[in-house]
């Protein structure tokens, strides 16, 4: 076996099973493994007590089981400045941001990577379901995780090839059930721990009450595009295009089709609703996006190229054609088939087969060359 004992790998340990097994596997492979727990959000209680989170206790347990040193590092300020402020700004603009994409780009694979290098690391590792390959020219390519259900390249789509140069994804070639099995066989404390849900800083808290602590909500009319008022909304930021739950509109006794959010007008503070999952206002032919990020240079593909794309996490890929604008600052993505609920603020992530090419942030969706009223 290759001698890895002089290669130091700092593993970002969250207290979950995926990062636990990542650390375990690296230790098995003989690396000099160091576990670090990232504290990105201040959940200090009212008494000012620095809370020993359950997650950190799990990191401590697992690290002792594996036999590696563990520490924690605080990125609360960086997270607030680089992720949370962006998150709030996007909501203020009536968009639906994806903080995890930015968190990976700014915190886990930047601030954390820098910190790991200060600890003498050669690599960092995380428990993401994604794979890396390196071509003959030394370029890193990001590939989907082997487990289709778990592939997390969507959230990693804004990492540069340079960032990836120092990264390992030890479980990227595994299926989740196998990861759990390894954790069980190794007797790791987190083997049966439930997967974490939702955005990291909100945790299991109620999203609506969380957001209301930071942004003023103004209730307003909930109506159809035909002008029929169906009720009131609690504040536009609480609703996402295509959302069904929480509207409080009963069946109308005609066809009993459920109601969906089909549009927003930020300037008039109106939430548009419409009947039916396949409501026509939810379908777009193309989108326009900016904040473009390519993991590797794509100039050899030309200004218009075919690939597949996802507009949200865990969606099936759609066939698309990408049209790059000459200024390089925005692009247009035309869909082979109309796409449902393409939401401004979310990432559109591009793939060529297994490879994740990069992503951009959606600004607007169009139907018959007319912008859908989503902001």
């Amino acid at each position, binding site marked *: 076996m290759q001698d890895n004992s002089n290669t130091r790998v700092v593993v970002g340990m969250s207290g979950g099973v995926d990062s636990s097994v990542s650390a375990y596997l690296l230790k098995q492979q003989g690396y000099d493994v160091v576990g670090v727990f990232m504290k990105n959000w*201040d959940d200090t209680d009212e008494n000012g007590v620095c809370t020993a989170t359950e997650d950190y206790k799990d990191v401590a347990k697992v690290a002792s089981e594996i036999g590696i040193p563990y520490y*924690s590092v605080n990125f609360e300020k960086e997270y607030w400045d680089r992720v949370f402020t962006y998150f709030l700004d996007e909501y203020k603009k009536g968009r639906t941001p994806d903080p995890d994409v930015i968190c990976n780009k700014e915190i886990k694979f930047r601030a954390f990577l820098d910190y790991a290098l200060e600890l003498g690391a050669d690599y960092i590792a995380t428990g993401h379901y994604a794979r890396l390959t390196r071509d003959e020219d030394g370029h890193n390519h990001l590939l989907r995780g082997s487990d289709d259900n778990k592939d997390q390249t969507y959230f990693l789509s804004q990492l540069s090839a340079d960032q990836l140069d120092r990264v390992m994804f030890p479980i990227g070639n595994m299926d989740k059930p196998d990861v759990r099995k390894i954790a069980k066989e190794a007797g790791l404390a987190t083997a049966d721990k439930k997967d974490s849900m939702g955005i990291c800083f909100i945790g299991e808290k109620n999203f609506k009450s969380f957001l209301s602590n930071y942004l003023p909500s103004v209730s307003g009319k909930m109506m159809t595009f035909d002008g029929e008022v169906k009720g009131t909304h609690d504040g536009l930021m609480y609703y996402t295009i295509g959302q069904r739950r929480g509207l409080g509109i009963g069946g109308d006794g005609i066809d009993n089709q459920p109601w969906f959010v089909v549009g927003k007008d930020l300037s008039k503070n109106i939430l548009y609703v419409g009947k039916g999952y396949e409501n026509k206002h939810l379908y777009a032919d193309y989108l326009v996006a900016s904040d473009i990020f390519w993991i590797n240079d794509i100039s050899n593909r030309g200004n218009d190229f075919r690939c597949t794309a996802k507009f949200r996490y865990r969606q099936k890929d759609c066939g698309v054609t990408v049209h790059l604008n000459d200024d390089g600052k925005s692009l247009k993505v035309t869909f082979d088939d109309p796409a449902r609920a393409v939401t401004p603020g979310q990432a559109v992530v591009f793939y060529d087969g297994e490879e994740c090419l990069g992503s951009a942030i959606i600004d607007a969706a169009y139907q018959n060359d007319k912008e859908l009223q989503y902001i």
Partner: protein
Amino acid sequence: MKKVYLDNAATTPIADNVLQDMYDKFKNNFGNASTLYSFGRDAHTILENSRQVIANSINANEDEIVFTSGGTESDNTAIIQVAKARKHLGNHIITTAIEHEAVLKPLEYLKNNGFEVTYLPVDKNGNISLEDLKNSLNDKTILVSVMYGNNEVGSLMPIHEIGELLKDHQAVFHTDAVQAYGLRDIDVKRDHIDLLSTSAHKINGPKMLGFLYRKNGIDFPSFIKGGDQEEKRRAGTENIPAISGFATAVSNLTNEHKLVLNKKFYEFKKRIEQAFIDNKIDFEINGQISHDNLQHVLNLWIKGISTYLMQTNLDLDGIAVSGGSACTAGSIEPSHVLKAMYGSDSDRINESIRISFGQYTTVEDVDVFIGSAVKIIKRLKK
């Protein structure tokens, strides 16, 4: 990887003869010292012999020694119980800004219960001024609690002078001698000390054990209530083997041995200082290296490198140093001692580490530390 332990102000490894003594007593003398049968009598004899050894070490009478669960309990008892017992004489207490939390927290509790506390400031070397103390004393002052020597920077307080000053004042004089005991020549009679706290595990004895010296005539109800042990001054069955081990640890520390240790530690400090200078490290000593200090403590400001990062990197090299109390938040509570010395805005409070030596620290250990620290600092400064 050779591990190097340089955090002896936090705790020390147990001495071999202490361990052997405790092992023997655990095996052979498990009796409860409060019982009348032979098992109890044997235990009682060990307890009282140990008490005598310990009383001698600070020139106290044996009935002035109360065994406790350690420095923290001794401090809590001395401060809270004495203040409450003397409330009829006044409600004013004087202490310093650089006491250990085991003193500051009980005082905070008293402050919330009607007492007034004056915190004496310190200068850049961590020293208080006797003038400040004189000016703070008034006819309501019932207690003065000033540590013997500081645990973070090693500054020594003017204990003898304070004792002289207070001997004709109603205020009781308590000193937290947890760091100084074992290195300094402590004499409670010479220095007019009324109450003194120590801990066994800082001098190569067992953990969860210490004593409170209480001058005869100063009375207060037991902090821990229950049995009549320790002349009703501390309830709870005494841990005879541990107390015996404590006495053995104290016996190890003869005056000659203390001199040797002080000299050795002073040289370690100079060695580190010189090596850092030779390697052009950008650093300063917090406080000072002087013959008039607690010699086992060295506090270094390594400019531009956070405490946590330095401490973590040293740990990855197997070297244990202190950086203040860490919490899960991945940051370190800034030291109140360095704040008191240099102000809250000083970079020192976030960029300092404390090294502390013990009986078993060797010059090789010190050199391993120097080698590793210099390597880490140079790498991080690149």
